[in-house]
């Protein structure tokens, strides 16, 4: 099994992004995803900067670099940027909206179907394969049982070899996208006048219940899980069912340590107790996502 570093979902200053990916280059990740997936107003790095960064990271390394694209696209200007990234001529693209699937299909280029593409079943896998999908990231709310059924079906249908399967395995889970910017709202600002305030929150803003329970993390127009998802104990199971890639989300530099921990777990499985106040694994076990099985 390979390990990927997912795209950072937060808004960081340009120099910190560059630093982060210098470290990523030195990390144990086999695959590095990078690019803005949340908000088109975040312009510390523009399309050409992300592509330049992708080239820097890809230079002198065996790691695969993938350009991740936006999830909620609402304007022609956003589509223009998306087209530019899709037609980069060099890197594999992670599509997070069907617009990107459409563009990649027109370009006759392969793509990764990211976590916000709703692919829940065999027929949908077939539709996406026909479009050019070569890697599928399971929607984060689905369970291990669901995945096993689907992968077995794909094997039976003779299509399992046509795509790699990737599972979001560590980090704050991307749960929802809105027209509204919740970070701007938390500062009593309108989205059109947000002053890019999410740059002040490198790991998002915690949104707790009135009893102090970490419910969600606000990240601009995106809502993340309040707990970090952690499938470290499930790594042998993922491996056994033929998952090709485990994704470690780029929440912070802690992701680099997790990449090592997860890899070690395959070689030398040791059970890690999740604490239940900052970690969860419920989705995989078909219970409330925020729970620990």
């Amino acid at each position, binding site marked *: 099994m390979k390990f990927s570093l997912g795209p950072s979902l937060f808004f960081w200053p340009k120099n910190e992004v560059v630093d982060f990916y210098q470290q990523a280059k030195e990390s144990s990740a086999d695959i590095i995803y990078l690019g803005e997936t949340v908000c088109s107003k975040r312009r510390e790095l523009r399309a050409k900067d992300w592509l330049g960064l992708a080239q820097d990271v890809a230079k002198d390394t065996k790691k695969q670099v993938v350009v991740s694209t936006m*999830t909620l*696209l*609402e*304007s*022609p200007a*956003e*589509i223009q940027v*998306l087209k530019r990234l899709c037609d980069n001529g060099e890197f594999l693209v992670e599509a997070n*909206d*069907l*617009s*990107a*699937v*459409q563009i990649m299909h027109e370009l006759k280029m392969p793509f990764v179907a990211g976590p916000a593409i*709703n*692919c*829940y*079943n*065999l*027929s*949908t*896998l*077939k*539709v*996406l394969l026909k479009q050019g999908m070569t890697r599928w990231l399971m*929607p984060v*709310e689905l369970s291990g049982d*669901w*995945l096993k*059924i*689907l992968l077995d*079906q794909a094997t039976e249908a003779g299509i399992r070899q046509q795509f790699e399967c990737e599972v979001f395995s560590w980090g704050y*889970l991307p*749960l*929802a*996208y*809105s*027209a*509204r*910017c*919740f970070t701007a*709202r*938390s500062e009593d600002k*309108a*989205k059109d006048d947000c002053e890019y305030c999410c740059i002040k929150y490198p790991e998002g*803003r*915690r*949104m*707790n*219940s*009135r009893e*102090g329970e970490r*419910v969600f993390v606000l990240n601009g127009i995106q*809502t993340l*899980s309040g707990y970090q998802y952690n499938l470290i104990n499930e790594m042998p199971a993922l491996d056994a069912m033929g998952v090709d890639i485990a994704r470690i989300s780029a929440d912070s530099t802690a992701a680099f340590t997790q990449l090592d921990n997860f890899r070690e777990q395959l070689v030398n499985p040791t059970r890690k107790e999740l604490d239940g106040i900052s970690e969860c694994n*419920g*989705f995989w076990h078909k219970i*409330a*996502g*925020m729970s620990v099985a």
Partner: protein
Amino acid sequence: MELLCPAGNLPALKTAIDNGADAVYIGLKDDTNARHFAGLNFNDGKLAKAADYVHQRGKKLHVAINTFAHAGGEERWQKAVDNAVAIGTDALIIADLGVLDYAATKYPDVERHVSVQASTTNLEAIKFFKNNFDVQRVVLPRVLSVQQVRQLAKSSPVPLEVFAFGSLCIMAEGRCYLSSYMTGESPNTVGACSPAKYVRWQETDKGLESRLNGVLIDRYQEDENAGYPTLCKGRFEVDNNVYHALEEPTSLNTLELIPDLIAMGIVSVKIEGRQRSPAYVEQVAKTWRMALDRYQQNPENFAVEGAWMNTLANLSEGSQTTLGAYHRKWQ
């Protein structure tokens, strides 16, 4: 512009038609639709009666099959399509790409509408559905501003339908796992958001508390109206500040946009609320019918009447309405 009303049962469907709906949308009695609630929706017998009632009056029936088909359970969704086609539905409202593929291949002559749950917010995504499944309509998620809807309507190769009134989803529909994160059940997989079986109410020293699967969603003082604990409409704490961090209890109401929507060529306005009572459907259908007719009679002098707004506000969550994302300031 079509007035498309919801119906969770036969009485609601008849009420909708009798009060001016041009078309009604319904779901089957299982998890193939996004309002999978106990006591709601149509079994095979009721489905046929629904179709008869609507068609005898020259109106249209849309059947929503708009959850995502389960791995290993796809036949249930395909059967739902078969059943809807068998009773002569005028349109299938579908979100899942696999189900759309099935419908387009097996029943190319039955209209296919892209459900709001498919989260189609831009031209390229619309092209995807047009090219692959030759869809006849796209229902837009409640995330676009009026300007964005206008822009899209100008260029879209497929006619567009928008939400006009009802409970307000503030997240891009079909891309929200908040409910399954808290309860294990989501609109995509189970056809329900913040399901009632996880709701608990409790009187405490601090006030009336509503919980969803144990998580405190809101706490009400005596002078406050308590609402259903939809998880995105509770009060939460962000850095010691307690407020409706995502959204207040409120409903979408776009009566004032009627002239704009018609000018843009929007083909249908959809009323949310298959889970609502016939009495609710009656009031909303009647009010919207009046407003749409008034506009047709005299477009230049169209003005929203206070009485219409009051009727709709009284039917709304928290007795208040909003233009939601259509109005940029809301965003």
